[in-house]
């Protein structure tokens, strides 16, 4: 079989497995799978920046968090927001924020970019943490999940965890497909060209700044989608949603899975969340509660990945094949 056929078969098998999960698994598993899919969307959005455009952002959680806050602020207290209006609103807000921040941080490059993105996300963190615009450091609760009634028709009920899973799965597939198309398009190739040699792309006549900014905005909107879903799932938003710990964790997912490839960040998100779950249930070793201090084995795992698996798990799976 050719490589494309293997990939198509694998994709179909995985999709069927994911779609049939709610019929066989328990509630916890389904909710955990939902969480993985949401983080996978988040990681894929960052991969557009890091893997495709070569822009290492350490502030990507800003867009994730702002969309979550958008849902919280647009939900009337103890009542549901409308899914069909609040989701686009949250994504547009995240996109608008990305436009402003991107216009500033894209003036820099390399390490400056890393630090500047970090600093801007922290600025928003403190805005929400120190003022009482949206609940201060405690954040806000979303008591009821968004309601999906559209002209009297109600296609799904997000309060049911099975329905919620399917909605997230559908959005995940759409984002995956969208990013696949984007990658193969002229836009995607220009972005990849900028990563390799921006000077050359500019002399070829491409307005590279605009391409990078567009890329930054798209990545911000998709992160917003993930943040909206996460806020809806957990029913709570707080400043940590924009914090640098989350920005670091999602960058971890991208690198762990493997940059550049479409499936890499998805594998990374699943691997990191499963590792976290595994480490949290570690037994005590020599009076040290490893389960409580699960970040210790996690930190060691991250260090080992950085040193010995710099191209991620996805590269490991197709060993022997030259990278693209």
């Amino acid at each position, binding site marked *: 079989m050719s490589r494309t056929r293997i990939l198509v078969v694998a994709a179909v098998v995985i999709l069927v497995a994911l779609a049939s999960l709610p019929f066989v698994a328990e509630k916890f598993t389904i909710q955990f799978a939902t969480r993985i899919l949401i983080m996978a969307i988040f990681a894929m959005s960052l991969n557009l920046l*890091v893997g495709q455009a070569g822009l*290492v952002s*350490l502030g990507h959680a800003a867009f994730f968090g702002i969309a979550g806050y958008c849902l919280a602020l647009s939900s009337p207290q103890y009542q549901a927001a409308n899914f069909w209006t609040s989701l686009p609103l949250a994504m547009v807000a995240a996109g608008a924020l990305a436009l402003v921040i991107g216009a*500033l*941080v894209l*003036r*820099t*490059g*390399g*390490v*400056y970019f*890393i*630090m*500047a993105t*970090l*600093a*801007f996300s*922290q*600025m928003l963190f*403190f*805005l929400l*943490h*120190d*003022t009482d615009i949206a609940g201060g450091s405690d954040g806000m609760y979303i008591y009821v999940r968004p309601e999906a009634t559209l002209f009297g028709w109600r296609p799904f009920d997000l309060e049911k965890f099975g329905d919620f899973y399917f909605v997230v799965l559908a959005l995940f597939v759409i984002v995956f497909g969208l990013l696949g198309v984007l990658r193969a398009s002229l836009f995607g190739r220009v972005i990849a060209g900028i990563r390799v040699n921006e000077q050359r792309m500019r002399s070829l006549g491409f307005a590279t700044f605009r391409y990078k900014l567009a890329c930054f905005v798209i990545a911000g909107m998709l992160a917003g989608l993930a943040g909206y879903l996460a806020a809806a799932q957990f029913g709570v938003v707080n400043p940590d949603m924009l914090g*640098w710990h989350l920005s*670091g964790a999602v*960058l*971890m997912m991208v*690198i762990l899975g493997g*940059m550049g490839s479409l499936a890499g960040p998805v594998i990374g998100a699943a691997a990191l969340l499963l590792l976290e779950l595994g480490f949290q249930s570690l037994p005590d070793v020599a009076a*040290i509660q490893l389960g409580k*201090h699960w*970040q*210790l084995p*996690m*930190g*060691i*795992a*991250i*260090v080992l*990945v*950085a*040193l010995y698996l*710099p191209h991620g798990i996805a590269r490991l799976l197709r060993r022997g094949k030259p990278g693209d």
Partner: protein
Amino acid sequence: MDIATFLIQLLNAVQYGLLLFLIAGGLTLIFGIMGIINLAHGSFYMVGAYLAWSLSMHLGSLWLAIPAGIVLSVVLGLLIEWLLIKRLYRLGHLQQVLLTYGLILIVEEMRGIVWGDEVHSVPVPDLLSASVPLTDTLSYPVYRLGISGVCIALAVLLYVLIQRTRLGMVIRAGATNREMVQSLGIDIDLLYRFVFALGVALAALAGMIAAPVSSVFPGMGNQVLIICFVVVVIGGIGSVKGALVGALLIGLVDTFGKVVELKVGHFRLLPELAGMSVYLLMAFVLLWRPAGLFGKRA
């Protein structure tokens, strides 16, 4: 604001700025010379503060705790460079970010295991516990003046070491061309191990001398790390002079942002938004000079 209050806040601002310089200076030195972006730098500040607390308990005095703490943090720096950082030189920025992020988690949890998660305070040493009277009611603690003094002395020392000694010349030459220095018969790897340890020791020392005024708590490292990033971005990455100017600017903006009251209409901008002020300053600097105040343009 009367003149005495202003003077007190100004001294606070300078002291905070100089303390930031000790940490940010090490961060920018490690980046400028070794090309390593070290997210775990703030963790060493935290380790320093915890060392000051636990050593001064065991040894009975901060005066003994500080030299012991410096020795320990140099050893820690050498060990981490030898174990991990030296493998990063051939890898990209991304792997550096990843590894040092992992290092933060490790240090944070080790701190939890060894010292616990409680907040501690370190008493100011008797010798420096006095205050300088400014007016009838206001006075300024000698210990804070002492912090500023130590920081200034170290800044001068650092300048002399890097710019005026043969060793500093070799270190600077290594930043420009590593292989060339190596082939001239200088063990650059060993030298850089000590540069890294110097950076670690500076951050830890900052934590140690700050401990009596700021208290010792988990997460204090990350807080200071982010601010140091802002300092370094404002000053220009790799520039020690930039770090000094940036740190003082941040000290002024942060301190006065918290005490000045600024109203636009009915909305109080300051001190409500003081937490944001330093990041706004950074945004302006990036707009004006994308490579920082003293950075080299790419």
